């Protein structure tokens, strides 16, 4: 039988479980930057890839990205999503062979955002280019416009998605620099973590505006280049030693 004391104790417990405990837990994991904090242009996120350190045959970054974002394939490589892929190239003049990861290059002037009819492809003020899964109509014009083939269209019904990376059948998607981690205060991406763990340290992520950030230090000491510089897209992914 419920009395007033019981009622108050149970109500307080329910409230605590619903509101206090999750905030404590999330506070522990992501203490630096709660989700409610507004994204600002004080940071500009970017990646430096040192192709000299990238090892052919290693797919640690690809595997980590797939796990982070729940990109489980259907055994159909032509239609399965790939947010990051490994590419091996040979220099036409020197014959030097290099391998490196390719992903969305997070352009300052992104063609995908220019052509998107609904504005679902957008660039955040901190430089992350991503797709609003609620307003993407699946026209694939952004895929036609992207010079880096960085985008994938979700061709099949998805089940058991990761809650931190919601995806949608019939929508376009691509690398979003692990935006969910960043917005929770993390300073690494899944691919960077995996590359470090594999002992290669070819991928360095960080704030391009911070002169002492690891990504800036990597860029300053390597004089990297952007892919397709002729297009003047001002990407935030830089490559060294190609």
């Amino acid at each position: 039988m419920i009395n007033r004391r019981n009622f108050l104790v149970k109500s307080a417990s329910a409230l605590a479980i619903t509101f206090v405990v999750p905030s404590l837990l999330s506070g522990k994991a992501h203490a630096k930057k709660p989700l409610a904090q507004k994204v600002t242009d004080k940071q500009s996120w970017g990646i430096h890839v040192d192709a000299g350190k990238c090892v052919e045959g290693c797919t640690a970054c690809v595997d980590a990205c797939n796990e982070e974002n729940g990109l489980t394939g259907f055994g159909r490589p032509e239609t399965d999503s790939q947010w990051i892929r490994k590419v091996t190239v040979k220099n036409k003049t020197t014959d030097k062979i290099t391998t490196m990861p390719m992903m969305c290059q997070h352009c300052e002037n992104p063609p995908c955002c220019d052509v998107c009819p609904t504005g679902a492809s957008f660039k955040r003020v901190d430089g992350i280019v991503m797709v609003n899964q609620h307003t993407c109509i699946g026209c694939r014009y952004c895929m036609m416009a992207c010079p880096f083939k960085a985008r994938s269209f979700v061709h099949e019904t998805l089940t058991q998605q990761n809650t931190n990376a919601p995806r949608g059948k019939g929508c376009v998607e691509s690398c979003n620099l692990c935006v969910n981690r960043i917005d929770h205060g993390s300073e690494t991406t899944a691919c960077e973590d995996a590359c470090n763990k594999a002992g290669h340290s070819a991928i360095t992520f960080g704030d391009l505006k911070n002169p002492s950030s690891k990504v800036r230090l990597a860029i300053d000491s390597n004089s990297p280049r952007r892919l397709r510089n002729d297009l003047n897209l001002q990407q935030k992914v830089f490559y060294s030693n190609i």
Partner: protein
Amino acid sequence: MSEYTLQKLKTCRYAYWGIFLFLGFLILLGIASSAYMEHEGHYVTGMNNQIVWGLPHIFAVTLIVIASGVLNIASMSSAFNKKLYKPLAPLSALFAIAFLIAGLIILVLDLGRPDRLIVAMTTYNFKSIFAWNIFLYSGFFVILSIYIWTMLDFNVSKYSSYVGKLAFGWRIILTTGTGSIFGFLVAREAYSTAVLAPLFIVMSLLYGTAVFYLLLRIISKLQNINIPDEIVTNIRRLMIIFLLANIYFLILYHITNLYISKQVAVTTFILLEGGNYTTMFWLGQVGVGLLIPLLFELTNKENRNFPLTLTSIMTLIGGFFAVAVIIIGGQAFPLNIFPDHTIISSSFFDNQIHSYSPSIFEFGLGIGGTSLALIIILVLITNLKFIPTKK
């Protein structure tokens, strides 16, 4: 045709219902195809992450290009004051509306999320040529509807010439917009050129005139009337001019690309090394679509109907190949992500010519959409007075 009245289509009931049911069946197939594609996901189509636009887009772009071109006949009357075409102007505007609707329906039903059409209609990114096209298409629909009204209602007929001129200007901008969907894609060597806009305009003039003539022939058979010789003569001359204009812009497009070093590879691919795409280009687009029709028409000095019918059909087959070569051929050639490198391996097919085998569902959607245009025309000309008949 100085003295004429507009009549409804008066044909045998069996012929009408036969055509209606046949087209209706094809439309149902189109709906079923689209429903299956949306339910299962696009993996059941031939499209993939390499060839992202496929057969539905070939149908849709061809129909939209035809929609603007088929208005030619009405524009001759209103914008260029050629009295000969005035009786045919309402029919021409009706065809334009029907083909526009069909093209757009196919585009919408091929979207990954067709249920979000309302988002596309209410949320705009004005930097996108696609968003401009949504305005251009809906505006064209409204202008054509008003144009037809001013032509059919005597009370407002004094405005028809003005609305006709507006429709003519709009259609030029609309086709420029359609061509620019490709022309603005700087990343793909096959597309990034403004020449595509005028190329699309001359394509629309050619295919639109061919479609108009073919439909006029069918209607005249059903109605048991003759197409005046003067009209046939003029359409033949127009076809020759438009065929020559198409050849000119096609040569200009490829010569331009051959002069720009970074675009030589893709042009060589289309013209020489592209396998099926090269065959489609030379045999379909150039041979069947341009050169043989030109030869037929130049030798058709008596302005006979049969060669004109044949060349119209060939022109349309060639036109379909032309759009296919532009859309699929342009995507099949891999992106030049590393201009000073050769890609040796990639899990995302960066180093390969991309393959595309259209599925039956895409074909069903395209045929269903095309049938929708024809059924709209059939129903409207049977119930409203569109067909000019001598008094």
